[in-house]
């Protein structure tokens, strides 16, 4: 499984390095979302600081939706999805490979967005270790859920509009937990982020397990 995952990771990262879709399209869109929120709440600087954690994760969610779409559009041009199926790769390996590539791409984007909320929303970052832990766990959970539904949606003709419809509702628990954890670590709410981090960990494990088990039938779905 890991061997197959590594093959997918190397292939998808190479394709991303060449096409630069995440850096040239997804990242600018995420930054534009942050800027638009800043314009919309400009007269209420205090509200902007309070809303920064939620706005950060909403921007991540929309960007993730685009990145998932891209991840599976690679596999639909020239019917490469059929090509993958014909190779006899472990479906769990393909799933893990896709999840890890999405996590890497989004983590880089989240670093940029982190600077964005500091500059645009005057947010203050406190515990970097916990912030990075929250970000990685949330991104893993979102990437796993997104890969499950991205694969499902890609077998339909209406995949472009179907993916957000499936992905956004299922990612609500991760969005909520990540926002709550960020609120604590950005100092907008007093309390501990640990319970939320545990919930994020559970979601990540559940989505990853479901994905590894279900990706085979999903990949075979016509």
């Amino acid at each position, binding site marked *: 499984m890991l061997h197959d995952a590594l093959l997918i990771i190397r292939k998808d990262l190479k394709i991303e390095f060449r096409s630069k879709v995440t850096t040239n399209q997804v990242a600018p869109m995420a930054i534009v979302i942050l800027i638009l929120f800043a314009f919309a709440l400009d007269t209420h600087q205090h509200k902007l600081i309070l809303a920064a954690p939620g706005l950060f994760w909403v921007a991540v969610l929309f960007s993730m939706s685009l990145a998932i779409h891209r991840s599976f559009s690679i596999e639909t041009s*020239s019917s*490469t999805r059929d090509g993958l*199926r*014909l190779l006899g790769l472990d479906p769990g390996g393909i799933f893990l490979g896709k999840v890890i590539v999405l996590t890497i791409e989004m983590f880089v984007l989240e670093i940029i967005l982190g600077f964005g909320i500091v500059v645009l929303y005057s947010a203050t970052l406190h515990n970097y270790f916990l912030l990075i832990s929250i970000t990685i766990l949330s991104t893993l959970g979102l990437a796993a859920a997104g890969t499950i539904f991205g694969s499902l949606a890609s077998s339909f003709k209406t995949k472009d509009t179907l993916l957000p419809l499936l992905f956004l509702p299922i990612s609500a628990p991760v969005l909520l937990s990540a926002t709550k954890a960020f609120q604590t670590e950005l100092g907008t709410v007093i309390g501990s982020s640990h319970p939320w981090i545990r919930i994020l960990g559970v979601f990540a494990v559940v989505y990853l397990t479901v994905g590894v088990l279900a990706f085979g039938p999903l990949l075979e779905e016509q």
Partner: protein
Amino acid sequence: MENVITLQSVVALSGSYPILSGVDLEVARGEIIFLQGSNGTGKTSLLRAIGGLVSISSGTIYILGQDLLKNKRVLRQKMGFLSHSDFLYEDLTIEENMRFYLKASGAGLDHIDQALDHMGLSGRLSKVLTSRLSVGQRRRAAIATLIARQCEIWLLDEPHAGLDADARDLLDSLITQASSQGVTIILSSHEANRAVELSTRVITMAGGHIVASHLSTSDEILIPKSTKSDSTNVA
């Protein structure tokens, strides 16, 4: 002779529409089968069913003595499929595509240079992104990948499409050579004359099943048991 592919009463549905309606077929090692029939008669569906790309609703498919449904992953690695699509990643070069497909299918990388050379894609062309290639060059790259994988079974859906005359001749010689080395080949093609000359057996399909089967060197029609009435009509 050893049967490499055995289909028994295979039925496959697309929604409620039968794309394969009771196919019985036995293919021996080294045979070159030419599937003929008009559009929509089930040639591509049959190739896809053998490749495990189409779910069958009843019947059995045995490849190399193993049940395809139970051993899909292992058996797929022994089959090469050349489809209407070339399965190539646009943002990878020809060589990178080949390396990926070979590594992923568990094949060695030893035959890459030879296959590229064979298909006239060696040198600088092998380092060109697939998105910048012509349809014919992409087709050649897909064939090069098929050769380099050293599969035991080749499933070729319209292999001559998109190729110039030289490349078609080259492909035909590759098919003959592979067959002599024990590779079993099933192909569908609208280049009937070329394909009949190439094949050892011709199978005619209509309405999702086999209606006639005869050796390409003889006029004798081998009537499938399940389709006697249909095949008599066609014959």
